[in-house]
């Protein structure tokens, strides 16, 4: 049962091959047996899941047509869930049980989907290896000595280890795409503003965007249909008609132009990764797509601009965690300053503190123009690169991350090396464009991701391209040998 895709589960629930309760119990069982290996969940909500499954079975019996109805899945622990612990991977929120749901959580509830639990993540989504979680690192199901990527490493590992057929995730600089690549699954980050950020704990507000991780592009399309909505409670959410992302999945690739940015194939790219990505591009060409070489000349400035903008926004976003109204509070504060400094000093991990300090510095008097001001202008140039490129091509393709999964500790003491993990994914967030990653091969028995970037609101096009690729190949169906 756990090998099934969401599309298959939805069909089998309706043909009564099994009930939602049965598959939910089966997956809960798997999680309790296997997740000690991967640490992909922070919280498993078994009781609630079974209750939701029973409700879904009633809905299914009365002919409910919501594709996610009765389908078990997991939420990244960054989404607030009413009455369920929501930690954001931090000690700061180790006791935080919100009395409200994120918009995304409401959307899945309304669809009748069954939440299995909350997945582990880098603390406050800051990290590319899942080593910054207060709840311990997540292990890559392909090689448990390796990182799953981050920050949505728990969601990625849960899907890769067949503990959940799909999971929600968020992407601020690559946090969906990079772990999807490293864990050999499919993940999509939609256009900024397509999915509501209400109830999603903020890292960098102008970059954060929720998306999904699944075993296939088709499943990602099904989940995104449920997830995306217009939400008045998020001022940056876009009031634009919703598209049925599954509707265009059969479109042929003939006439689609795929741009290959030369800057994504330079120094630092692992040779095996490069070969796999180039082979995948050939595959797209075979399927009818036209391949065109393009240039995104400001690519080299994306990581520097990001590491000003994201820390600056996070330094303010995380000020609310002060030990006063919720979350961690230090023992016996001797005065107000002590309350603030120790609650925050003890409640946040090193990487979070590092980014707050960098952001504080970049915004402080005398440095604003050189850092934040300049980064905002560079951000414009990066967006402009894409605007120009999309005049000539429909989709951009390249590697998701420079190399396959690395060993624990390999980069954890070197923040800059860690930040360069996202060198190909970050520009997409700065521009607000949709991007996805799909498996395109193995290097040393570890998965490689092909990244696709689309124009604004062209998620449908991306998903179709990915789906066509997955019709012609079976990289997405590969599972780690250790997983039965």
């Amino acid at each position, binding site marked *: 049962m756990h090998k099934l895709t969401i599309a298959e589960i939805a069909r089998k629930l309706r043909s009564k091959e099994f009930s939602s309760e049965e598959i939910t119990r089966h997956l809960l069982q798997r999680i309790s047996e296997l997740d000690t290996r991967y640490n992909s969940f922070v919280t498993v909500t078994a009781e609630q899941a079974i209750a939701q499954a029973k409700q879904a079975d009633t809905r299914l019996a009365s002919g409910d047509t919501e594709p996610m109805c009765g389908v078990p899945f997991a939420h990244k622990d960054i989404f*607030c869930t009413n009455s369920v612990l929501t930690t954001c991977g931090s000690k700061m*929120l180790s006791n935080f049980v919100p009395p409200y749901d*994120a918009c995304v959580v409401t959307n899945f509830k309304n669809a009748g989907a069954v939440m299995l639990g909350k997945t582990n993540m880098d603390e406050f989504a800051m990290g590319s290896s899942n080593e910054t979680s207060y709840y311990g690192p997540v292990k890559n199901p392909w090689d448990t000595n390796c990182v799953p990527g981050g920050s949505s490493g728990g969601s990625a590992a849960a899907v890769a280890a067949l503990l959940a057929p799909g999971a929600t995730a968020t992407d601020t600089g690559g946090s969906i795409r990079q772990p999807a690549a490293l864990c050999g699954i499919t993940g999509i980050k939609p256009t900024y503003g397509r999915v509501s*950020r209400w109830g999603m704990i903020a890292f960098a*507000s*102008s970059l954060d965007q929720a998306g999904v991780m699944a075993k296939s592009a088709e499943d990602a399309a099904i989940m995104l249909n449920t997830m995306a909505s217009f939400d008045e409670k998020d001022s940056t959410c876009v009031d634009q008609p919703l598209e049925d992302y599954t509707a265009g999945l059969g479109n042929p690739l003939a006439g689609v132009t795929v741009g290959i940015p030369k800057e994504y194939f330079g120094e630092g790219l692992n040779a095996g990764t490069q070969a796999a990505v180039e082979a995948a591009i050939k595959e797209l060409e075979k399927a009818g797509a036209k391949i065109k070489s393009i240039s995104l000349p400001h690519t080299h400035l994306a990581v520097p601009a990001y590491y000003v903008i994201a820390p600056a926004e996070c*330094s*303010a976003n995380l000020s609310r965690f002060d030990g*006063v109204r919720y979350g961690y509070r230090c023992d016996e504060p001797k005065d107000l300053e002590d309350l603030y400094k120790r609650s925050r000093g003890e409640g946040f991990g090193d990487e979070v503190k590092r980014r707050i300090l960098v952001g504080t510095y970049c915004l402080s008097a005398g440095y604003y123009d050189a850092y934040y001001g300049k980064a905002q202008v560079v951000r414009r140039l990066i967006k402009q690169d894409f605007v120009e490129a999309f005049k000539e091509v429909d989709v951009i393709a390249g590697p998701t991350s420079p190399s396959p999964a690395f060993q624990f500790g390999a980069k954890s003491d070197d923040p800059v090396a860690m930040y360069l993990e996202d060198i190909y994914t970050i520009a997409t967030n700065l521009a607000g464009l949709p991007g996805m990653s799909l498996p395109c091969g193995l290097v040393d028995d570890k998965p490689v991701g092909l990244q696709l970037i689309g124009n604004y609101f062209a998620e449908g096009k991306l998903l179709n391209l990915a789906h066509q690729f997955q019709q012609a190949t079976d990289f997405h169906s590969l599972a780690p040998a250790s997983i039965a």
Partner: protein
Amino acid sequence: MEWETVIGLEVHVQLATQTKIFSGSSIAFGAEPNTQACAIDLAMPGTLPVANEQAFRYATMFGLAVDAEIGKRSVFERKNYFYPDLPKGYQTTQLEEPIVGPGNVDILLSSGEQKRVRIHHAHLEEDAGKSVHEGASLGFSQAMSGIDLNRAGTPLIEVVTEPDMRNAEEAVAFARKLHSIVTSLGICDGEMSQGSMRFDVNISVRLKGGELGTRTETKNLNSFRFMERCIEQEVERQIEVLEEGGTITQETRLYDGDTHTARAMRSKEEANDYRYFPCPDLLPVILDDDYIEQVRSTLPELPDARQKRFEETYSLSAYDAGTLSADAAVASYFEATAKASGDAKLAANWLMGELSAKLNAEEIAIGGSKVSAEHLAGLIARIKDQTISNKIAKQVFEAMWNGEGDADSIIDAKGLKQVSDSGALEKMVDEVMSNNPSQVDNYRKADEKKRPKMLGFFVGQIMKASNGQANPQQLNEILKNKLDAE
């Protein structure tokens, strides 16, 4: 040495919206602590702001009223600092691109001189919550403070002036004028005691014509009287320091309304670096010309225009018209009284005299007056038709204030009607003349010039005998006739 004072104001004006600037919580005054603080106001994780349309309309109205340019694009920024009444750890405010640009406000000084105070800009922002220190009575340790976030997120406009004022009188005149403008617009309830308008005063002194001195800022003054005293004291203090050869420290001071003294704040403001940057949760606000013109077309009459109209329509002096037009509620009370009584001059005198004395004594606003405009007009009508004299009218007013009914019923019940029957008056005059033969004699011997003064004695006697009810004009005439007749 001749010193010159330089004063600039920053005024926080609470907007009279139903809800907060970025959430749907009520801003009604006086609720139980934290019962009007929703997830957004509490800065719960994952919550996001959505802007309140009415706050923008009100800010636009203010901008138009002070003849300012409206920012067609305004941007919210985050002002970062930690304070327990600031749940997000930053205040959402405007800095680089405020909604209201430079404007001006004209004030009238007691010398009769008109002065223009320039507005540097006005911006929209959210208010903070409140700290409560009375732990002992609220069941917590005196070493703790309690935080109430009901006020957090209340929409404010902060009006920043140029340093154009030169003394306390000018600053207070400006403050009163601003109060008059925002209450006339209906964008603020003007309740100073509830903190609906709060003034931060920047004060420096310099040798006349010299360079600007170091300024201090005294925060959160919420009455015109405190403001006046605070400025006078601070100017005195600064001059004293400078004359003794000292220097002024740039500092933030707090005024204590109980002791009428100010002191420097203990928290170190100078260590702050607010790290402003555009709020990524909010987008730029764009107001187009159509919108601005639409708002302009809904503007109510403003104090300056109203003053002019009062001068023209009711033939009032500039001073009277200014006093009566400043407050929208006073102005409408005046107009109702003037119209119903048919005598604007009397209405003005009564309003600025008896009525305002009563209101001041009992510390109530005109809205709470115990004598309605209708009743006051009724009283004025009886003065005009000579049913009662001015003196008796004061007695009737007192009775109306005490809730004894309208003027006519009080006059009836108390028998206060003026005696205008000439037969009765003649009888009284005869009686007084026969009781005071020597005074009559003296009068008749006195020369023409002294006689009017001596007439007063007889008038007084008759008024006494008639309980003040004798019609004074008629009485004068009869008296003069009889005394002059010999």
